[in-house]
């Protein structure tokens, strides 16, 4: 066989000193490069821990729901796009858990926080944990969550903690794409066929009331998010459901649906089966 067929499989067992660079999300581009990670004076460690955990939980739980779409998307292009969004959120979750662990100072790393906390300790909003439905449900949920998270992270880009501020800046560019992707789909589906408009209206009717929880968690996001939603629905020829008085879900205080228990059972199953294992 000619030498130009030589390839990496040959050298697989060699040179594992630099393995970190072979793993996605590690070693290529450090989003915290040049950022001072010492906790600045005047930042309340307890409050920072709680804020990072809540934002990380939202991202991890939403990424897990997107991972459940993989191999079931309506188009191959959409497999790639949903995975992209899931990976961005997972990346945000990792940085935020790491920061929460540092601020907490109890020696917990990203995996301790993701895999060894129970449902009642999770602070994600309930909208993120709702089980997947059809594709209209997927893009409406994504539109709500990404519009809200984008507004929230935009407000954190000047946070006194330089790490959280750096994570927020990275997140803003990612979420701008997520929101745009979701908005384009809502418009396509709202305008597309009778069936797609019907399905999208049904998804809106189900998910619309969960906005209350988002605004309760971050009241400063309300005006921006409402404006975005109004613009998208208008372009999609859809009307906003009338706000029915519903009890506000409260994931931020640890009150969750049974769906989070199922989601965590799956997410944590392998890690908890052998807590001594190294991965």
């Amino acid at each position, binding site marked *: 066989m000619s030498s130009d067929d030589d390839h990496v499989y040959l050298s*697989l*067992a060699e040179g594992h000193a630099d*393995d970190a660079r072979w793993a996605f*999300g590690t070693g290529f581009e450090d989003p915290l490069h040049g950022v001072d990670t010492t906790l600045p004076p005047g930042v309340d460690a307890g409050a920072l821990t709680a804020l990072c955990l809540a934002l990380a939980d939202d991202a991890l739980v939403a990424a897990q729901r997107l991972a459940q779409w993989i191999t079931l998307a*309506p188009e191959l292009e959409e497999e790639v796009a949903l995975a992209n969004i899931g990976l961005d959120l997972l990346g945000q979750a990792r940085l935020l858990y790491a920061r929460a662990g540092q601020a907490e100072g109890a020696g917990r790393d990203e995996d301790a926080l993701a895999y060894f906390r129970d449902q009642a300790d999770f602070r994600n909003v309930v909208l993120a944990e709702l089980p997947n439905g059809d594709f209209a449900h997927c893009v409406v949920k994504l539109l709500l969550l990404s519009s809200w998270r984008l507004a929230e992270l935009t407000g954190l880009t000047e946070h006194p903690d330089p790490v959280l501020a750096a994570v927020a800046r990275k997140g803003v560019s990612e979420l701008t794409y997520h929101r745009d992707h979701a908005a384009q789909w809502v418009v396509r589906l709202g305008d597309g066929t009778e069936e797609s408009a019907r399905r999208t209206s049904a998804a809106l009717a189900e998910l619309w009331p969960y906005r209350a929880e988002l605004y309760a968690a971050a009241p400063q996001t309300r005006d921006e998010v409402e404006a975005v939603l109004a613009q998208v629905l208008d372009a999609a020829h859809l009307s906003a459901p009338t706000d029915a008085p519903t009890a506000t879900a409260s994931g931020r205080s640890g009150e969750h649906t049974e769906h989070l228990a199922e989601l965590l059972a799956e*997410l944590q199953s392998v890690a908890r089966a052998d807590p001594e294992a190294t991965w």
Partner: protein
Amino acid sequence: MSGTDSAESATRLSAHFDATIAHDQRIEPRDWMPDGYRATLVRQIAQHAHSEIIGMQPEGEWITKAPSLRRKAILFAKVQDEAGHGLYLYSAAETLGIDRDELTERLLQGRQKYSSIFNYPTLSFADVGVIGWFVDGAAICNQVPLCRSSYGPYARAMVRVCKEESFHQRQGFELLLTMMRGTEAQRAQVQDAVDRWWWPSLMMFGPPDDDSPNSAQSMAWKIKRHSNDELRRRFVDMTVPQAEFLGVTLPDPELRWNEERGTHDFGTPDYAELMRVIKGDGPCNAQRMERRTKAHEDGAWVREAAAAHAAKQQALRETTKEGTAA
């Protein structure tokens, strides 16, 4: 054109094609090519594209269960890459004058195949590592020579695919190394996964040379550059030292170094099993096709809506253009 002229022109085209192949130059989509060459490429590229897409399933099942966030990110990105590979390969097939929807139909109707390896189940997280090591490794052995395939769009797609596959098998091996340094239970999981995946991986190179009906013509056309048995032997030679480095045993009592031939002797894979799995009777064939069919059917209304919206937008643009022109 008279009959003689067209016969002469066909001879000239055919001679030009033969000369291009002989000089190791690339055939491009607009070039004349024999019908058999075109059909062989469509079959092979489509099968490869389908394999990428079906291949997302066995590992995709573990994204939601990956035991660390770093492993979750690695696996998520890998499965995403496979969707991307499927896209480039379907695009390469489309340059031959067939569209992706038609190829998807052929897959769903069972008229086109995908790699039989994806009909085996993934039973533990160690399988993710072993698939990276063996399955991506075997894929690389098959595909690196395809970067020099005579059909330009296929060769170029393979360059990009191989780069990413290299990454995947490296990540798989790194997971196994980490597991082997972990607990006793983890080492046992790795060995178990090696035991289950070794023989199916050897079958990835296809039937033995004397029983491979399409190989000779494909090699003459330089679509394929090496025989199945040649590639299989090369894979074994490369894998043995890696298994030693890792500390696992390859499940083949006949496996030993042959000093005289400068290569390993090894047992014969159960080709009857390969034929059974190809014909649809593997452990997960039904499950894999069911899931792919479900995704396709559940997505039909979405694709229709996207097409309807695009048509409305197009009509709108045309009306505006007419308005401006008037």
